[in-house]
């Protein structure tokens, strides 16, 4: 039962109302599962779902990446720095 932290930024942070969400996931849960939980609880943010890239512990990762206790999962909406 990994405890993970979801990190939210920019428009997604605004839609969800927080920059950080703590989640307890079932064993074997993936990064994609964590993202599903968030969007399930915040359906008004759903249009952003398909634009989100996932990062696990500060590196871009696949949705199939299996999570471990203490992992930090960031939901990266399209970036616009520069």
């Amino acid at each position, binding site marked *: 039962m990994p405890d993970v932290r979801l*990190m939210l*930024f920019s428009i997604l942070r605004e*839609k969800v109302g927080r920059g950080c969400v703590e989640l307890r996931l079932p064993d074997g849960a993936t990064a994609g599962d964590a993202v599903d939980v968030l969007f399930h609880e915040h359906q008004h943010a759903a*249009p952003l779902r398909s634009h989100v890239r996932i*990062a696990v512990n500060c590196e871009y990762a696949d949705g199939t990446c299996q999570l471990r206790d203490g992992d930090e999962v960031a939901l990266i*909406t399209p*970036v*616009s*720095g520069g």
Partner: protein
Amino acid sequence: MQALTSPEVRLLVSKEPIDAAAECAFLYTPEAGGIDIFIGTTRRFTGERETVELVYECYTEMALREMRRLVDAAAEQWPVKRCCIVHRVGVVPLAEPSVFIGVATPHRAEAFEACRFLIDSLKREVPIWKYERYTDGSGEWVGSGMQAG
């Protein structure tokens, strides 16, 4: 301010105005003959829309790691002797710089190519977001595909 620095590479995310003189001084080295620098500044008009200011948000820990990854990728392709990437976060008023990327290489063609690669890659890969405030009171997270609020 958070930073990742070595004698050759200087990566910085900060709320303070960018100090161009300090970055240039870092880039000067007898190993290089050409330096290319890109600076992004806050532009007033985009078509008819008038911008008041930009506000940048950054996932700093990851942004510094991504910047490092991009510098490493540049150094594999070009003989990079010094490189700096500085991004300002928070409010960036009109005409002020939000980003400063500098690359020093032995010859100029390499510096231009590496610098262009870095700014193009930064805009695609580094987790930083721009909020644009317009004079009509509206605003948006640029490129998010949704209205803010």
